[in-house]
C-alpha cells in the first residue's frame, strides 16, 4: 500500500467515526442545519450563540450592509468578496476611510472551523468577538466605528431591511438592537460559509474521475514528506488550526515560513512581526496562522501581506525553504532564518511535478461556494428584482 493509500484509508476511517458519532448529535438540535457532506463534522457552535435561520439571515444582511461603516462607504463584504472566496484581491486591505491595512483580507472559507482568527492572534477565538476588530479597531481604521456604537445601533433601528430582521432573530429580547446581537448574527452567518464541494471533495466521496491523473499526482506530492505541505495545511479543512463539533483539542497552529529575515536573526519587518506583536514572546516572531487552502486559487495575492503574487511563486518560496529578498527595504534570506518552522525544509520539484501540484491546489476551488446565492449580497437581489419590476 502506498503512502497515499494509507492516508486515504485513515481518512475513510475517520470519516466513518464522524458519520456514526459526531453526526448523531450534530447541528439539527441547534436550530440550523449545516450544509456539510456526510463525514464532515459541522463547525463548533458556542453555547452562547446557537445557530438559527433568523440570525443567519440577519447576519447576511449585516455583512453586506454599508451601515456598518462610519461613512457608509464599506461593508464587511467590501473586503470579503464571495467570488474571491471572501478575500478582496488586494495585497493588503483598504479601510473605509482610505487607511491601508498592513495585512491582506483573509478568506472566510470555513471561518467557523478556525481555532484562532485573524492572521496572527492567540487571543481571538470567537467569530463574534472577532467582528469587533474591523468595526471598532483603530490601528488601522477599517470600518471606523470606534466610540460610535450608539450611532450604529440607531442606524439598525432605522434601517428598513435590518430592523425587522433584528426583531425576528431575537424575538425574546425587549430591545433586540444590541451590539451583542449584531456580532452574534454576523458570526452565525460567517459560520455558514462552509466549502466542501470542490472536485477534491467529490473525489473523496467516490467520484474517482473528479480528479485528473495530473491532479492526483499533485495530491500525492501535497501529502508527501517531500513537500511537507500537509503538516500545516492538514485535515479536512487544509489547516491545522481547525476546530469542529466534537473536537476537544486546541491546536494553535502558527508558523514562521521564512518569508523575511531582515536582521539575520529571523526578524520580520516592524510593521508586522506576526504573533510576536500579541504575545511578545521572541520565539513568536514571524509566526502566522496557516489558513485553509480551500479555494486558494482565487485568493491571490498570497501570504499575510500579499507579498507573493501567484501560487506558482508560493511554491517557489517553499521549494527554496524560505524567501531570499535581494533588494528592497526588507533584504534578507528567509531560508536562513533561525526562527523558521521545521517544516520549511525546501524541496526540489521537476517542472511536471510543480505543474501537478498547482493543478491539485486548483482542485480545491469550490464553484458552488463561490456562487452560492445563500452567501450572496441580498441587497443586490432586491435591486435586481426591483429593476425587473
Amino acid at each position, binding site marked *: 500500500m502506498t503512502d497515499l493509500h494509507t492516508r486515504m484509508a485513515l481518512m475513510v476511517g475517520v470519516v466513518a467515526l464522524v458519520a456514526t458519532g459526531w453526526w448523531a448529535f450534530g447541528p439539527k438540535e441547534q436550530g440550523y442545519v449545516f450544509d456539510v457532506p456526510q463525514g464532515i463534522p459541522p463547525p463548533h457552535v458556542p453555547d452562547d450563540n446557537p445557530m438559527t435561520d433568523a440570525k443567519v439571515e440577519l447576519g447576511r444582511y449585516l455583512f453586506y450592509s454599508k451601515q456598518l461603516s462610519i461613512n457608509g462607504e464599506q461593508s464587511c463584504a467590501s473586503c470579503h468578496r464571495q467570488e474571491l472566496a471572501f478575500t478582496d484581491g488586494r495585497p493588503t486591505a483598504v479601510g473605509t476611510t482610505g487607511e491601508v491595512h498592513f495585512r491582506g483580507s483573509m478568506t472566510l472559507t470555513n471561518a467557523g472551523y478556525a481555532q*484562532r482568527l485573524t492572521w496572527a*492572534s*492567540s*487571543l*481571538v*477565538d*470567537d467569530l*463574534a*468577538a472577532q467582528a*469587533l*476588530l474591523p*468595526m*471598532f*479597531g*483603530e*490601528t488601522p481604521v477599517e470600518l471606523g*466605528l*470606534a*466610540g*460610535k*456604537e450608539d450611532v450604529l445601533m440607531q442606524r439598525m433601528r432605522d434601517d428598513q431591511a435590518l430592523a425587522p430582521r433584528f426583531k425576528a432573530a431575537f424575538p425574546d429580547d425587549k430591545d433586540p438592537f*444590541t*451590539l*451583542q446581537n*449584531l*456580532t452574534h448574527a454576523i458570526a452565525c452567518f460567517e459560520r455558514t460559509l462552509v466549502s466542501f464541494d470542490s472536485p477534491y471533495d467529490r473525489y473523496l466521496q467516490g467520484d474517482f474521475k473528479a480528479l485528473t491523473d495530473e491532479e492526483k499526482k499533485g495530491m500525492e506530492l501535497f501529502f508527501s514528506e517531500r513537500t511537507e505541505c500537509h503538516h500545516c495545511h492538514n485535515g479536512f479543512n487544509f489547516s491545522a488550526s481547525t476546530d469542529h463539533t466534537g473536537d476537544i483539542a486546541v491546536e494553535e497552529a502558527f508558523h514562521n515560513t521564512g518569508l523575511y529575515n531582515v536582521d539575520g536573526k529571523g526578524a520580520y519587518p*516592524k510593521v508586522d*512581526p506576526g504573533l*510576536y*506583536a*500579541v*504575545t*511578545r*514572546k521572541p520565539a513568536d516572531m514571524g509566526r502566522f496562522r496557516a489558513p485553509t487552502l480551500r479555494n486558494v486559487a482565487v485568493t491571490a495575492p498570497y501570504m499575510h501581506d500579499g507579498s507573493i503574487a501567484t501560487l506558482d511563486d508560493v511554491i517557489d518560496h517553499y521549494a527554496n525553504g524560505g524567501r531570499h529578498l535581494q533588494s528592497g527595504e526588507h533584504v534578507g534570506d528567509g531560508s536562513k532564518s533561525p526562527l523558521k518552522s521545521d517544516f520549511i525544509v525546501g524541496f526540489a520539484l521537476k517542472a511536471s511535478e510543480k505543474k501537478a501540484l498547482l493543478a491539485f491546489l486548483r482542485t480545491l476551488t469550490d464553484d458552488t461556494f463561490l456562487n452560492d446565492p445563500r452567501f450572496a449580497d441580498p441587497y443586490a437581489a432586491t435591486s435586481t428584482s426591483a429593476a425587473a419590476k
Partner: protein
Amino acid sequence: MSTSSTKNPTTGWTTAAAGLLLLMLGAGCSQPVPTTLQVQPTYKGAPVGCGDVLSLDDKRQFRLTDLRLFVHDVRVDGDKVVFASSDVAQPHVALLTPLSAPCPTTALSPQLQLPASVVGKAAKLQLTVGVPFDDNHANPAIAQPPLKGTAMHWSWQAGYKFVRLEGHILDDNGQKTAPARVHIGSTACQGPMSAVSHCDQPNRPRVALDVVVAKDAPLVLQLPLDQLVVPTAGDPKPGCMGGVDDVGCPPVLQAVGLDVRTGQALTTWASTQAASVGRTP
C-alpha cells in the same frame, strides 16, 4: 430577695432601643460622603482643555482632542473606597472623561463614597489607572457602563485602553502634520480572550498623592501630560499604540511610572509633579 436586682423587661427594651439609636446615629456619622473625582490635565504646570494647543518646541505644537482613563482600587489612607454606580462608574471601576465638546466626550465625573471621618483632614489618596484584570478581558458587547464603550476597548489586545490620549501635531503654521495617539493598556496577554491567564505587561500606572478632603468640593486629580504629547525622535507614528517595536512607547510608559519591560508600576504617575490634588475646606 431584693427586687432591685430584678431586671425590668420594659427598662431592658428601652435601654436596648436607646443603644440601637445611638448605634444608628453613630453609623450615621460614618455614612459615606459622596465626593466627585475629577481629572485636570496639565501641561507645563498649567491646566489644559479640549482643543488647547500645547507648544512642544519652536516649530511644533500639539492640539489636544481626546483624553479618557479608567481608574480603580482607590484608597484613602490605605482604606479602600468605592464609587457610586452611574454611567461612568461601577463600585470598583470608573471612567474619567475631563474633556467636553468638540472633543468626543462629555466631562463626567464619578462620585467616590468617602468615609466621613476623612473630611476636613489631610489624607493619602492612592489609585490605580486601568481596568482590574478580572474585568479587562470581558466582552464589551455585554459589559455594563463604563466598560461597554468601544472607544476604550482595545480589541486587538483583547482588553481595554486604560488611557486614551489623542491629538494632532501641528506645524508652525498651525497646520496638522500627523495624528498623535497614546493608548496604554495591558499587553502580552496570554491565552484565548475567553480565558486570558495573565498579561506579561499589566501596564497599570499608579497615583499616590497627599490631599485635603473637603466636604462639597471635588477631589481634583491633576495629571501632567508633558511627557506624553512630545513625539519621540524617529517615530513615524507619534505616540504609543502598544506596538511591540513602537519607539514612542518607552518614553510614554516611563512618564507614567511604568517599567517598560515588565509593565509594573515603579513609581507613581503624578508624584513627580509638584501639582497638588484636592481642595482645602
